[in-house]
């Protein structure tokens, strides 16, 4: 373990546990989120993501664990934690009976902003989140995307330094999702720490500095998107040929020579016909690439294009969360 104190981290959790009855939801997880970064908790439905957010945002109490948010101990000083954070939960936390502007002014009042400053903050945020036209309408008439935007705008009223977003883009259309990503990037560029849960791998890949994959209440893996991708097999080197003759001879050579090439011996080269390309399994490391190149040279194969493919987060997700046999259709939906 590093020697960082809880104070240099925006969020620090050690041995976080939570059980409902005899169902363990979080089984002793450790988290460390440096200030000013985006941390994404990734996992399938029911993995415990929302429970983790609820605990770290003081909504519910943990059964065990040493937990600090914004340098404050969750167990002894939850009110100081609350003063540092903003939370946008999975279900919209807006007052549907009043207008968007009234919702914003409600937040300003609760943050004890002086009247004029409250009005100005509300107006600025409504503008920034493209809600000016709807500001005078009851929130119950808003679309899902508008409610989400208002929700985040309300979270920002107090200028929180640490923001929890629980599945912020679930149920949004692609355009709204991209807008939300823009909003999150903007927040981070302002120095805010973002703790994000998502079931969309692409979203974690796009936004997060670090990703933890939560599965059955445990952290199955943690690291940057690149680091996670290297954890699972599925990477390969692809050779593409312009000349069908060169392709055929390479394919034959590959099949014959495969057992001799150290990097290829394990999985065996798999020639594929599509677009005259050949695929050779590889983890993408320098050593393996060199041996592949050496072998290609010695076999007299000259490809027109060579690309290295690392596995994407989908592969990581399915490998780590034990749902490798989900149908292709679902994989596409997740993407």
């Amino acid at each position, binding site marked *: 373990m590093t020697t960082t104190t809880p104070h240099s981290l925006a969020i620090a959790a050690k041995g976080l546990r939570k059980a409902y009855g005899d169902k363990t939801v979080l089984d002793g997880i450790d988290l460390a989120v440096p200030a000013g970064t985006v941390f994404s908790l990734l996992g399938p439905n029911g993995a415990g993501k929302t429970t983790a957010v609820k605990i770290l945002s*003081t909504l*519910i109490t943990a059964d065990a664990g040493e937990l600090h948010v914004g340098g404050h101990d969750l167990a002894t*000083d939850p009110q100081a934690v*609350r003063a540092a954070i903003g*939370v946008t939960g999975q279900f919209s936390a807006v007052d549907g*009976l*009043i207008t968007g502007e009234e919702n914003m002014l409600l937040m300003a*009042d609760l943050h004890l902003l002086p009247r004029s400053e409250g009005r100005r903050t509300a107006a600025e945020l409504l503008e920034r989140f493209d809600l000016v036209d709807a500001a005078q309408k*009851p929130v119950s008439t808003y679309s899902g995307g508008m409610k989400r935007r208002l929700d985040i705008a*309300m979270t920002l009223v107090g200028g929180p330094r640490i923001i929890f977003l629980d599945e912020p883009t679930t149920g949004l259309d692609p355009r709204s999702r991209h807008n939300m990503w823009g909003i999150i990037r903007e927040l981070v560029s302002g120095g805010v720490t973002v703790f994000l849960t998502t079931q969309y791998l692409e979203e974690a890949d796009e936004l997060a500095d670090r990703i933890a994959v939560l599965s059955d209440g445990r952290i199955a893996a943690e690291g940057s998107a690149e680091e996670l991708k290297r954890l699972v097999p599925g990477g390969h080197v692809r050779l593409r040929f312009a000349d069908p003759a060169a392709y055929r001879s390479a394919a034959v050579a590959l099949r014959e020579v495969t057992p001799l090439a150290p990097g290829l011996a394990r999985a065996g080269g798999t020639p594929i016909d599509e677009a005259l390309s050949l695929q050779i399994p590889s983890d993408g490391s320098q050593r393996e690439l060199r041996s592949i190149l050496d072998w290609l040279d010695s076999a007299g194969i000259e490809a027109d294009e060579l690309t290295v493919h690392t596995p994407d987060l989908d592969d990581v997700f399915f490998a780590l969360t034990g749902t490798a046999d989900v149908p292709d259709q679902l994989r596409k939906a997740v993407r």
Partner: protein
Amino acid sequence: MSTPLTPARPARFSLAVRHSNTMLRRNLLHARRYPSLTLNLLLTPIMLLLLFVYIFGDVMSAGIGGGDADRSDYIAYLVPGLLLMTIGSTVIGAAVSVSMDMTEGLIARFRTMAIYRGSVLVGHVFGSVLQVLASLVLVGAIAVAIGFRSTDATALEWLAAFGLLALFTLAFTWIAVGMGMASPNPEAAANMATPLIVLPLISSAFVPLDAIPGWFRPVAEYQPFTPAIETLRGLLLGTEIGNNWWIAVVWCAGLTALGYRWSTALFNRDPK
């Protein structure tokens, strides 16, 4: 750390007041935008008032004052009970709106903000108390319009009557808020609060205690509505109050304390 983490007590108190006041304004805004809930609840006492005066009035008046009473005497007899029944039926709105609020994500947001924790419930309670008091004014005005007159009440007695109604409202609002907190949804909250309409029916609101069968009389006599009704009658109409006033005050204090403890305990529990 050298600086204290929590502000000094007066500062905390003024924060609690400001946050509660904001929550109160939120609830009053709801009431203004969607008055139908309170208005629907008001229908019961107003209909009962008109029903018992204009339809059953002649029969009912025969049961009071030894037979020589007329309809206007029965109006005088009925109104104090109807005012308290107005409280019992309109506080149901508090149970329903608290329960509705608790199913919303907004309450989770409030829980994760550095605000006075009790402000959500305090806002509901005071919002409801103001709505009930407005309802009392309305029912009182109708009563006066159909002929209710206080006989000899002094200013002090009027003040005491108003104070009693306010205390009773506060007590039953806290109970209703507890019922709203304990209910999984608004429908269940409305069902749970139904006894608050039924209680006045089995009190001395419509008929004198001696008209109630002996085996049931102790229940009718000592449940919270009867002593409050008898006290209000005494204050407005000069009838005998006896020990009713302090029984009523004890009921109010007890129910307020119970409702407060119950509601806040439920609110401070981990939400599902």
